[in-house]
């Protein structure tokens, strides 16, 4: 007996449930659907009638979001099952980013940069742990508060926009489509963490971006010097654009992680975001300089860097620009190759 429609329905309900109860509810739901089907058909029922009966049964059950919501007690949690998986993910991204910055990057910079006595270095590291715990508490607290508010403010239908009146079981996505449009969870998480780190560093610690070297100046002991390289134009012209691009990318990644698969809308937004990145690169190539070596005090080094580094960077940007254009073409090709407007459509975005 061909019951792929039931399989697709159960899959759609299951993916909205917390992992802990998913398999069990899926098994029971499938069994219940089969009971209803068996009750209304017999061995002689042809395939068309069988499918029509499945559609009728699923219409009685209602949209997957409604059934999934029924299995979750409403508003008895600080953060309910609807968004709990996503909450864990975002909390992990925030905690991971802060840990990387405070426990890895900053200590390495401190050890490389400070020629202070060991006691001073240890004192600095202890202070950093204090800062880390404070930042961790503030970061995770903000995430938790945001999700707790979302849990109470979002209507039940906010994350699943299926309309019970117009929902048609025949529009359920194929499980194969789900596989084909599956997102790369690991890649997205890594990208999100790196983007968050980039945002933090460029906006709050711009002094870290520069040339680092160990030198002996004026008979002083050899020590680590970090020379800021970014111009004021970078912060007033380019950084706001970069911030917008990165924040939108983080939002897109979170939406993708929430939906669990690519859809036509998200593919198109991804193309637009990539095009925006290309625009920023183009502006950086053609606009005011974003690097300066004014802060460089060692004259010879300055002359050396001034002569070839800007050229090298511009060459890098041109290569980056060409690669980004290639990426846009590749993403558009995927949309046409997978015929995403047929398999996902614009109307069942939340399905």
């Amino acid at each position, binding site marked *: 007996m061909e019951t792929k429609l039931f399989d697709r329905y159960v899959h759609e309900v299951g993916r909205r449930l917390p992992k802990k109860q998913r398999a069990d509810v899926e098994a029971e739901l499938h069994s219940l659907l089969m009971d209803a089907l068996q009750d209304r058909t017999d061995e002689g029922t042809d395939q068309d009638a069988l499918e029509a009966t499945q559609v009728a049964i699923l219409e009685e059950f209602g949209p997957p979001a409604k*059934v999934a919501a029924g299995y979750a007690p409403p508003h008895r949690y600080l953060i309910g099952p609807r968004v709990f998986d996503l909450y864990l993910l975002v909390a992990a991204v925030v905690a991971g980013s802060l840990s990387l910055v405070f426990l890895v990057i900053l200590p390495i910079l401190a050890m490389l940069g400070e020629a202070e006595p060991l006691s001073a270095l240890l004192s600095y590291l202890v202070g950093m742990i204090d800062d880390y715990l404070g930042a961790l508490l503030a970061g995770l607290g903000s995430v938790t508060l945001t999700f707790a508010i979302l849990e109470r403010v979002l209507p039940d239908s906010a994350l699943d926009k299926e309309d019970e009146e117009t929902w048609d079981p025949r529009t359920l996505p194929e499980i194969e489509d789900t596989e084909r449009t599956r997102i790369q969870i690991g890649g997205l998480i890594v990208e999100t963490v790196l983007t968050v780190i980039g945002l933090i560093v460029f906006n709050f610690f711009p002094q870290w971006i520069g040339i680092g070297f160990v030198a002996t100046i004026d008979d002083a002991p050899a020590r680590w010097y970090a020379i800021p390289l970014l111009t004021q134009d970078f912060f007033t012209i380019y950084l706001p654009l970069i911030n917008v691009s990165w924040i939108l990318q983080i939002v897109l990644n979170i939406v993708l992680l929430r939906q669990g698969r690519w859809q036509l809308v998200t593919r198109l937004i991804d193309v637009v975001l990539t095009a925006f990145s290309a625009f920023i690169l183009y502006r950086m190539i053609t606009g005011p300089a974003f690097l300066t070596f004014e802060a460089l005090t060692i004259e010879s080094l300055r002359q050396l860097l001034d002569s070839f580094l800007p050229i090298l960077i511009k060459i890098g940007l041109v290569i980056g620009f060409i690669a980004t254009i290639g990426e846009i073409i590749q993403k558009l090709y995927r949309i046409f190759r997978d015929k995403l407007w047929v398999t996902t459509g614009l109307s069942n975005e939340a399905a």
Partner: protein
Amino acid sequence: MADPTQNLISELRRGTLVLTVLSQLDEEQYGYSLMQLLAEKGIEIDQSTLYPLLRRLESQGLLESEWSVEGSRPRRYYVLNETGKETLQQLKQEWRALSDALDHLL
């Protein structure tokens, strides 16, 4: 816009749902058989309401359930446990008292 009277009727019925379901689970039933049993007795409950309700009653400690592979496919059977039986008795008493009081009012 939904008919307000219909909404009130739905709300009234919703309030009796737990008592209705518990009253039929002194013997093991799986979801679909329970729905049919209730339908035979004149109580129509949406499947999307009934099945999650069984889970919730189980998580509240009123029902026990287990998978059985007897029959054409595996099915999850639910039955009242001791707490469920006691709760059912209390709900029955409450219902009768409420029903009598309402009869006087109406």
